[in-house]
Each structure stands twice: as structure tokens, then as C-alpha cells.
């Protein structure tokens, strides 16, 4: 229930961590865990009446094999059963596409407990004042979970817009507008990375021509130099530096980076390398998710 119910309160968090805690205690193989998650999904879909419309894909934690290489980057000094088991740096992902009927493309992306819903409209009509004669006008609107959008949202919108503009082939649709609307459903750390992932999946769902896919990865450095990927809200608060990178899918090049806090040059390179490795898993998840979607048609 946890993955499909976006309106959960505190009860939902308990369910999620209970499942992960049981998984973490035994040394289970990635495939077993994945089977457990997928059978749950199949049952839920059967209850929904067999309609294929919502395309929900849950990323398995089958990244343990590759994560062995990151063991020296990730010194797991935690003793409490956190939301992820030992040896796995990224939280669970789940992605659902084409869930809204009005926008041309929509996607919902979950990373652990952080969840963002994205909708894309375009290429559509544009106001004369905003039109650009030789490419599409890209607009990003980010709405926080509560309250009015403020300066932080504006700054994140600009970062997401710059990333999208680097990747979307705007020259194919001059004098049109492509609007990406993001709604934060729940924020439990790594919000910007989750927004980037949701925006990418929504753009792919809308059929906007792109020259590559992109993903967002967040790293946090705590006071003794330990690197944590995909930090939770608590880890971000206690960290001395939080770095978010947007990477493209063709050559893992850096599209956007935004950092907060104190870090050295060597640490920056280390974080970037870790993010590039983590992005491989995100892109593999995108590929599986999209293959599943097209396999049903």
C-alpha cells in the first residue's frame, strides 16, 4: 500500500520502514526482494480491475552488487535501522507515468519518502511577449507542499529550467511553449533530485524531443567527511555540505550542480564521481520503467 498511496500520513512511514527493516536484517538477495515488491504490485493491480492505465514501476534494490565498489565511499557507521539497509546507497525508487488526464505528459517519482508529481504541457501556444523566434520557451513551475511558492522555489525552478533547456530540442518547435509543472507531494530529503527525475520522466511521457535523458543525484558530506548519497531530511540538516548534480544519460556529463555548505575541491570530485556511478542505476531504472510501459501496448 505504501508505494501507491501518496496521501499517507505518519502511518505510511511506519509501513515503509517496517518492510525495509525486515529486509535489512536478513541478507537477502536483490532478486528475492524485488520479487516480494513486484508480487505485491501485481495483487494491487488485480484489485484495481485489471486496467493497464497507471504504469507503476518500482525500482528494486538490485543495486547491491554494484554498490560493493562504493563500500569505501560509504562508511556505514549507523547503528539504528535507517530507511535503507547496509550496502545500498540509494533509496527505493518508484515511478508512475501517464497518471493525469489533462496534461500532455505526467509522471510521479518517489525516492524513499520524497515524492514529486510532474505534468508537462507542450508544445503549446505561447504569449507573444514570451515567444522566442527560434526555439521553444520552457517554463517550470514548482509548487511546495504547503504555503505559497517563495524564493527557494523560484531558485529551484531556475535550476530545473536550465537543466531542461540543455536537453530539450527546443529548436524543433520555435514560438511554442513547453511548461513543466511540479507539485511536491512529500519532502523527506533530496527534493531537487526527485524534482529533476520527475521532470525528465514527464517530458519523456509527453513526447517532447530530447537529446538525452537526465537525472538528479544528491550527496551529503557530514562533519567527518563521510559521503552519503540520496540523504534523508535529517541527514541533510546534520551534514556540513549538500551537493546536488544533474547528469545526462549519454556520457554522464554534468548538466547542473548546486551546492550548499563547506567542502574541499577533492571532496567535490569525489561526490561527482559517486553521483556519476549512482546515476547509472537511475538510468537503468528509467529504461526498465519505460520498457515495461511499452511492453503493455
Amino acid at each position, binding site marked *: 500500500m505504501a508505494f501507491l498511496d501518496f496521501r499517507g500520513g505518519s502511518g505510511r512511514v511506519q509501513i515503509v520502514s517496517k518492510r525495509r527493516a525486515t529486509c535489512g536484517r536478513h541478507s537477502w538477495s536483490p532478486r528475492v526482494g524485488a520479487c516480494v515488491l513486484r508480487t505485491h504490485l501485481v495483487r494491487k493491480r488485480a484489485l484495481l480491475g485489471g*486496467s*493497464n*492505465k497507471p504504469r507503476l514501476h518500482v525500482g528494486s534494490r538490485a543495486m547491491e552488487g*554494484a554498490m560493493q*565498489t*562504493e563500500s569505501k*565511499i560509504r562508511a556505514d557507521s549507523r547503528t539504528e535501522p535507517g530507511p535503507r539497509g547496509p550496502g545500498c546507497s540509494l533509496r527505493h525508487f518508484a515511478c508512475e507515468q*501517464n497518471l493525469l488526464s489533462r496534461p*500532455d*505528459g505526467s509522471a510521479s517519482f518517489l525516492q524513499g519518502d520524497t515524492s514529486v508529481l510532474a505534468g508537462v504541457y*507542450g*508544445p*503549446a*501556444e*505561447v504569449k507573444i511577449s514570451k515567444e522566442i523566434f527560434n526555439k521553444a520557451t520552457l517554463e517550470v513551475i514548482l509548487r511546495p507542499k504547503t504555503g505559497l511558492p517563495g524564493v527557494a522555489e523560484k531558485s529551484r525552478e531556475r535550476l530545473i529550467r536550465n537543466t531542461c533547456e540543455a536537453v530539450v*530540442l527546443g529548436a*524543433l*518547435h*520555435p*514560438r*511554442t*511553449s513547453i511548461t513543466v509543472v511540479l507539485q511536491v507531494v512529500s519532502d523527506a530529503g533530496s527534493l531537487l533530485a526527485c524534482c529533476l527525475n520527475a521532470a525528465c520522466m514527464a517530458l*519523456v511521457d*509527453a*513526447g517532447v*524531443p*530530447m*537529446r*538525452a*535523458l537526465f537525472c538528479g543525484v544528491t550527496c551529503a558530506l557530514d562533519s567527518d567527511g563521510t559521503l552519503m548519497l540520496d540523504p534523508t531530511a535529517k541527514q541533510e540538516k546534520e551534514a556540513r555540505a549538500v551537493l546536488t548534480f544533474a547528469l*545526462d*544519460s*549519454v*556520457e*554522464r556529463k554534468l548538466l547542473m550542480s548546486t551546492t550548499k555548505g563547506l567542502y574541499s575541491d577533492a571532496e567535490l570530485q569525489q561526490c561527482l*564521481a*559517486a553521483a*556519476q*556511478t549512482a546515476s*547509472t542505476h537511475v538510468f537503468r531504472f*528509467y*529504461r526498465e520503467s*519505460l*520498457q515495461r510501459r*511499452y*511492453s503493455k*501496448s
Partner: protein
Amino acid sequence: MAEAAGVAAESLAGCRARAARTVLDQVVLPGEELLLPDQEDGEGSGGAGERPLRLNATARSRGRVVCGPGLRRCGDRLLVTKCGRLRHKEPGSGSGGGVYWVDSQQKRYVPVKGDHVIGIVTAKSGDIFKVDVGGSEPASLSYLAFEGATKRNRPNVQLTRGAVLLLQVSTWAFQVGDLIYGQFVVANKDMEPEMVCIDSCGRANGMGVIGQDGLLFKVTLGLIRKLLAPDCEILQEVGKLYPLEIVFGMNGRIWVKAKTIQQTLILANILEACEHMTADQRKQIFSRLAES
């Protein structure tokens, strides 16, 4: 660090260009590069993308390969720009290398020259009608772009065809809000799209104003292409169910009209649901409807 670099190198190596032939009918993602058949021999021998020098400059035996929707030419390779299944069509008469395209699922229409679409008249300014076709800007339609219409002579033409399509073309009876079935003569990214209700011979050929009543609804572009495919059984089954008139626009719009409103709504629901149903479920529904 060394192991991380090793993993990174392995992942980057997976992104090298693949031969288009090997990924036919598979899902391709934006950013992938595809090699055309006459460039593959170089990849095998060099391994790092070297190609043997050809002394004979006209060694291309394949001819022209057409790059369809979802693909862009990038140097001498094809760059995938949309997510979907890669398809290929062999050339019929032997000239050229065929067409490659990506079958993607989309809702938003982008005008393409030659497409037949259903538009809604939104404005009339002088001699031009502005028609909303679902794209980024309204298309323009001249009042002379109808069969037999001249500045002076304004005939009221009636066309009857078979059992399926019955259209009444009356050039002056239409106003803002009417439905028009026409085709694009100008549709590119730089210019405003223009449509006409006349074919190249000057005949209407089924195009023009769509009559009164009926229901217009919107579906995805992929469903329209599926329904208009030559071997589509859905349409034949629907035709056996009730007598109906139906018009498909490539912009995702379908106009349907049956004897009663209830039948029209049933048909609209069936066509919308067709996308997500398997063939068996569809046959079940049709048999249930045929009984009642």
C-alpha cells in the same frame, strides 16, 4: 576510486552506438545513437569506431534512408529523440534504404503536411477562417479551399459515400464552432499551418464541414494510427454493431454519430477504452452489446 572508475567505464561503454538493425521493435530511449546498415562493418573491426577508408567514394549501395518521427540525423548516425519502439519499413520499389521511425505514445499533436485532421473553427477574419487543430497555433483555412467554391459562385454541394461516411459540404453555412475535416498543405515549424478541404485534383474527396449532431472526442495519437491501420478489426466490429458515421482526424480527434444519443455515447466509450483493452476483453464487450 579505481573500482568506481571501472564501473563508470563499463557503463559508458554500454552507451556506444548500436546498429539500427539489432534494435528493431525494441524500446529505444532519447540520446541513443543508431548506426545505419552501411556503417556497421567499421564498428566490428575497429572496436573504437574506426571505419576503413573507402577508395570508392560511391560505395553506398543502400541509397537514401528516410529518418521518420522520433529520429534526427546526427552526423552520419541517427539520434533517437523520443522514447518508443523502433520500426523499419523496407523500400517498396527498391530505391532508397527504407524508413526508420519511432512509435511513441503521445497526446499532443504537431501539424504535419498531408495529414487529415478534424478542426474546430474558432474565428473568421475576412477571407480566412482560423481553425483549432490541437497544435501550438491555429491553422488558417481560406474560404476558396472548397470544391467548386469561387468568389461569386457559392454552391451547396452534397456528397454521399458508402454506408460509413456521409458529409454535407456547404460552403457558407458554416460558422464559428463548426467542425471541419481537411488536410494540411503547409505545416512546418517556422510557418503558420494552412489547411484546405480540397485535394490536389480539386475535388473534396470527403473533406469539408462535418454535419450537425454527433460527438467529438479526443484520444491519443497512437490509438488513431492503430485504428486507421489497414488490418484493424476494431473498426469492422464496430461497424457491425450499429449503423454509424465516423471521421478520424490524425490530431487525435474522432467524430462519431449514430441513430440515438445513447448509441453514440456507447461507441465513444468503446473507442476510448480500446486502447487499454486486450482483444478478448473487446470481443466480450462487443458480444454483450450485440445481445442487448
